[in-house]
């Protein structure tokens, strides 16, 4: 570390071995014996005018201090997510965070899953959408407990609103809680909600390269549902290629191909849920 001006030589980004303060100009300065060259961004306390690419000697007044944080940017969210996870564990609840682009068929899948499973499993749903209660109403019509979270301009669910919702939905011991995230394949990957698994979904109308375009989501997921396979005869969608792309990003991904609407391929998915919820 440069002890005089306080910049940390080893921790800042380096380009060609020179640390960068992401500042427009580069100049050399020498502090006593050591001369180093960097583009620096700290405000000079000394009011000198310097033309750039020169050497100069100066003392930076060392009134600054550096606080090492090493703190996760999402520490607050992660802490609340851990509490949610504890809540679920306490009730032996399997919590699934369902994510996809808008319209892939998340709500349809939940409706069908509830129809298939509600005789043997208690189910509750937390619906996340920017606006409207529509999805919650569709779920309510199946007879299970549901709470809607509207995120307004927020493009993903965060653990704090889910914490409120799970208390409200009050899931039964041993039940399954589905959290339908806001339709978005980017940021839901970042925000842990306390779920046991993220399940990503894509539909065959979306293109088989989605996993390569949004690798973060497919990497964060435990399982992938490829939905709307009833439409395959009408589309140029290479199902095998899609699976291959998904496994390239995440070799451990469990893949289910199904049609929520036509109730095709639902059994393997439902069995997987039942297995996990034991």
């Amino acid at each position, binding site marked *: 570390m440069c002890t005089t001006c*306080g910049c*940390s030589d080893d*921790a*800042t*980004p380096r380009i060609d071995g020179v640390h*960068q*303060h*992401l*500042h427009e100009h580069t100049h050399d300065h020498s502090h006593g014996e050591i001369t180093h060259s960097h583009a620096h*961004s*700290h*405000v000079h306390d000394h009011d000198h005018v310097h033309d750039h690419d020169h050497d100069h000697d100066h003392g930076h007044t060392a*009134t*600054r*201090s*550096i*606080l*090492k*944080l*090493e*703190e*996760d*940017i*999402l*520490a*607050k*969210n992660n802490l609340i997510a851990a509490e949610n996870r504890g809540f679920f564990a306490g009730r032996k609840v399997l919590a699934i965070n369902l994510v996809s682009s808008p319209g892939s068929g998340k709500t349809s899948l939940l409706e069908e899953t509830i129809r298939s499973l509600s005789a043997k499993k208690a189910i509750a749903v937390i619906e996340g959408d920017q606006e409207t209660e529509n999805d919650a109403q569709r779920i309510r019509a199946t007879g299970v407990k549901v709470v809607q979270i509207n995120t307004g301009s*927020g*493009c*993903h669910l*965060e653990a704090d609103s889910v914490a409120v919702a799970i208390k409200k939905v009050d899931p039964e011991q041993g039940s399954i809680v589905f959290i339908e995230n806001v339709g978005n394949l*980017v*940021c839901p*990957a*970042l925000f842990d909600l306390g779920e046991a698994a993220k399940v990503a979904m894509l539909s065959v109308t979306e293109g088989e390269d989605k*996993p*390569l375009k949004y*690798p*973060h*989501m497919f*990497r964060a997921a435990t399982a992938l549902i490829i939905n709307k396979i009833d439409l395959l005869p009408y589309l140029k969608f290479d199902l095998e290629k899609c699976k291959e792309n998904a496994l*390239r*990003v*995440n*070799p451990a991904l469990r893949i289910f191909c199904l049609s929520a609407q036509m109730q095709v391929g639902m059994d393997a998915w439902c069995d997987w849920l039942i297995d996990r919820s034991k």
Partner: protein
Amino acid sequence: MHELSITKNIVAIVNERAKGRKVVRVQLEIGKLSAIVPESIRFCFDVCAKDTCLSGAKLEITEIWPIGRCHSCHQDFSLDLVNAQCPCGSRQFECITGQEMKIKEMEVE
């Protein structure tokens, strides 16, 4: 635009730690596997920092390239973002870097 909420988190954490002192520099470490786009954070930072003790602070972002540690050949390798595979062909590995989303340090006056 999730970077806005990410940036708000950054400003909130730093603001709390600054305890009223003026913050001149904030340094982040962002892994390439983290789904955070540094450019977008930069874009949001000045707006979020406005009217806080971070106002005018410089934002430094170190991007961390992902490294995997292979379970079969035990080598560390540079991980391709969309092809999760060791050069030896194995797909069994753990990520040892690349998922960072950290506030590394901050500098106050």
